[in-house]
């Protein structure tokens, strides 16, 4: 009997002391779709959790005051005032801040040649280069209070140095979200750190409503087959069945050729395989080039692909900066484009926001 | 006949000079001299591999330098003092390379070529080495093979640089005997350099010394004259 009691005690004890993965309960989580971002808001405090997709026990936690309310004790906050000056390393960050009309808060970017937003271009932000080789001197010179990076590798260079100088660094894993709305939901992160969470929430609601509306209006009777991706070197890279792009295709009611290939990342297929599967494709999306000549220059054998000659080819490469900036936070616009493309002969090319026919 | 007049021998600096010299067929001509005096350079010059620094050499009344490589190879064969052994090159193949002037464009041997090689192997007593690779031979065996290779080339003149240096006494003797036969029975013109003088003098060869002090090439009649050169 004693043994059972001891066992029970240990059991309860160990349960109670199990390492908690997240401190923000599902019920309190403001984020509904995103997998790697969790936010809880109380009257005084806001907790933000950013989970490392490659190592879910590694959580970046932020505690900040709820900037809406004036009060709040001088508790040990990670961010004490609403962020006024930000360095952002991805186009998606720029797009989200643009939606919130906070472009003026951006003081540094990766590379100006990838920027679409004209206001930002005229602001002449400091250029920091690629994520792994960012110049910490330039970050300091830009007087950024917060650096938002992508997290391509585990550590941001000179992270400790920057933190010592009271410059916060935050990874933004929007690019790891496979749910289109989950990706857009990261707009809330920018809302909360700048004290504009209400506007962010409102914007996001709008996007979600739009998205759902477009989705529901799509004609499910017609079947439009699509091919996606292109050859790089010896292999064809295309989104896998559970990836972000595949979900968009699916929500748009498009019949994606590789939708039954499992995975959330990219597929690497032989050209032969793609050739064998693509005879009756209606649309070829996202080849990564804005002209057929460029497609053939890079891979001459592409001339054998039926979709190149018989179908319509569409891509966003003619204005790639616009796509990279806006696509993450406006999945509703992508969906709208897809819905329009699905109309085939009845599509109105002028209505397309990101996509253009590749000729 | 090989004829030399007012020759200066050397690679880029003159080593010695020759006033006049004649090398006829049907004789063995032996070059002697101190180490480094230029015996090898002289043979290389006669073979056409290096040019004389001064003067003209003629072969059969035609200037040596006018001959094409191909023509020259049908008149003169040269054996270096340190023949090279190569992996996977059998003695048979090695000897057949000496028949390059006779084999077809792809190097294929005819009946005659094979016969000549067999003859050479018998003559030089190297039949038992036929299948061995040249890099597996001792330096003496390789030297015999090199001489045999020059033999199958069937030239009027054969130049040999210290052909007996790696051989034992019996083989040294055999080589000299063979050279004697070649000059007498085949009317070849043989020019060799050697340090095996006592043995060489046993044969009816013609001797020459390259004098170190005067840096001159001269004919000598007997062993005593050669000794004189080496005593100072």
């Amino acid at each position, binding site marked *: 009997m004693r043994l059972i009691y001891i066992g029970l005690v240990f059991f309860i004890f160990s349960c109670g002391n199990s390492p908690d993965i997240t401190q923000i309960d599902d019920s309190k989580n403001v984020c509904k779709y995103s997998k790697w971002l969790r936010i809880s808001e109380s009257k005084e405090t806001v907790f933000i959790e950013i989970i490392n997709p490659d190592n879910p026990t590694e959580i970046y936690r932020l505690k900040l005051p709820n900037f809406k309310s004036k009060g709040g004790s001088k508790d040990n906050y990670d961010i004490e005032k609403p962020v006024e000056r930000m360095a952002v390393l991805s186009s998606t960050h720029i797009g989200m801040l643009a939606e919130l009309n906070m472009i003026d808060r951006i003081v540094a970017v990766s590379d100006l040649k990838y920027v679409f937003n004209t206001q930002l271009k005229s602001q002449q932000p400091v250029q920091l280069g690629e994520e792994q080789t960012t110049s910490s001197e330039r970050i300091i010179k830009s007087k950024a209070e917060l650096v938002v990076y992508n997290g391509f590798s585990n550590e941001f260079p000179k992270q400790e140095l920057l933190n010592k100088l009271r410059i916060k660094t935050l990874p933004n894993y929007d690019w790891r979200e496979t749910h289109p709305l989950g990706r857009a939901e990261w707009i809330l992160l920018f809302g909360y750190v700048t004290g504009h969470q209400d506007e962010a929430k409102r914007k996001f609601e709008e996007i979600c409503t739009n998205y759902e509306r477009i989705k529901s209006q799509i004609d499910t009777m017609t079947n439009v087959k699509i091919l996606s991706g292109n050859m790089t070197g010896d292999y064809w890279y295309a989104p896998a069945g559970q990836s972000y792009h595949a979900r968009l295709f699916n929500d748009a009611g498009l019949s994606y050729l590789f939708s039954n290939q499992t995975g959330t990342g990219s597929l690497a297929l032989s050209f032969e395989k793609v*050739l064998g599967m693509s*005879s009756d494709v209606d649309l070829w999306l996202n080849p990564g080039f804005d002209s057929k000549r460029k497609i053939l220059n890079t891979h001459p054998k592409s001339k054998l692909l039926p979709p190149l000659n018989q179908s319509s080819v569409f891509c966003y490469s003619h204005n790639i900066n616009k796509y990279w900036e806006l696509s993450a936070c406006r999945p509703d616009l992508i969906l709208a484009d897809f819905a329009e493309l699905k109309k085939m002969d009845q599509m109105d090319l002028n209505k397309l926001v990101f996509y253009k026919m590749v000729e | 006949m090989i004829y030399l007049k007012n020759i200066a021998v050397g690679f880029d600096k003159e080593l010695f000079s020759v006033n006049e010299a004649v090398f006829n067929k049907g004789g063995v001509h032996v070059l002697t001299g101190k180490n480094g005096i230029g015996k090898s350079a002289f043979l290389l010059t006669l073979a056409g591999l290096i040019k004389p620094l001064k003067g003209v050499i003629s072969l059969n009344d035609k200037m040596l330098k006018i001959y094409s490589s191909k023509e020259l190879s049908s008149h003169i064969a040269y054996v270096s003092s340190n023949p090279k052994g190569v992996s996977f090159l059998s003695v048979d193949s090695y000897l057949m390379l000496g028949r390059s002037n006779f084999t077809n464009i792809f190097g294929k041997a005819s009946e005659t070529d094979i016969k000549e090689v067999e003859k050479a192997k018998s003559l030089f007593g190297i039949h038992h080495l036929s299948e061995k690779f040249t890099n597996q031979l001792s330096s003496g065996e390789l030297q015999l093979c090199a001489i045999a290779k020059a033999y199958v080339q069937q030239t009027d003149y054969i130049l040999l640089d210290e052909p007996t240096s790696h051989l034992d006494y019996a083989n040294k003797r055999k080589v000299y005997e063979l050279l004697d036969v070649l000059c007498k029975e085949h009317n070849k013109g043989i020019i060799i350099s050697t340090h095996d003088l006592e043995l060489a003098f046993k044969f009816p060869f013609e001797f020459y010394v390259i004098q170190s002090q005067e840096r001159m090439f001269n004919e000598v009649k007997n062993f005593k004259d050669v000794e004189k050169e080496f005593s100072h």
Partner: protein
Amino acid sequence: MKGIKSYSAGLFLVLAGIVLLSIYGLLYGDVDTNVQDLYHSLIDYSNEDIDQVIIREIRLPRILMAIISGAALSIAGMLMQTLFQNPLAGPYVLGINSGSSLMVALGLLSGIGFFNSELGLIGSALLGAFVFGLFILFTASFLRNQISLLLFGVMLGSFVSSIITILEVGSQAEALKAFTLWSMGSLNGVTIEQIPMISMVFIGTCFLTIFIVKPLNILVLGEDEVRLMGYNIKKLRILIVFVTAVFTGLITAFCGPIAFVGLAVPNLTRMLFRTQNHLLLFFGNLLFGAFFLLSCDIVTQLFSEVLIIPINALTSLIGAPFVIYILISKLR
């Protein structure tokens, strides 16, 4: 010259192997095809049938290129090893390949229109190979020591790599991507329309090689021997470099750099045939080289679902240990 029969038997065996592997490679892939498809794709091709298209436009050029490249690089390696009297010589090690790479890099990364064209690319690869070949030949007259010459080749390769790195940093993203992909090496880039031209250049250069087998045989004994046997050694050297440059440049232009074939196969052929008869070695290298690269290609295709193995990785994986083995046995 005994044992010609056993050489022929061996060569026929390898030839049969090549034919069998080729048929296998033409029939099997990601898409199921059958013998009828194969027959039609070769005899009465119709580009409507996707199976025929796959066999004729994708698999056939790749397999033919594997055969030609394997043969050409191996023969080039044989020539290098005889010319420099060094079993560790090869188009890569001595830097001839660096010449092609540099010219292709200039072409693709500098953005000058002519070089981007097919003709420009091939021309520049060939020119680069030839110029560097002459340069190495010139250097060989100074660096008598074999090891020194190899080191020089390695240094030359490093030097060219640095220049290419600088070119890469300053180039546009698309050009950089194109060059990076090229430098990985691939047999897939060749189209069936290009095969006839490539084959003709290859066969022509083979004929050239066959006609110099005799002086090559003599060359193993040294350059003096070549002169003594009546050949013009200067012309021979340049001719050998020219032939090597054409073989190497041709393959590098269409496939990018492919490592170790030119280094390992000639050594293997010599070790198996145990001869220095360059006519035999020529055919041996041609067939062994073709068989080797074709096998590597088939293996790459077989594993492509599970693991993507770039062709260069496979040739290095097999070639490098073999070369190390040669080094060790040479040192003993």
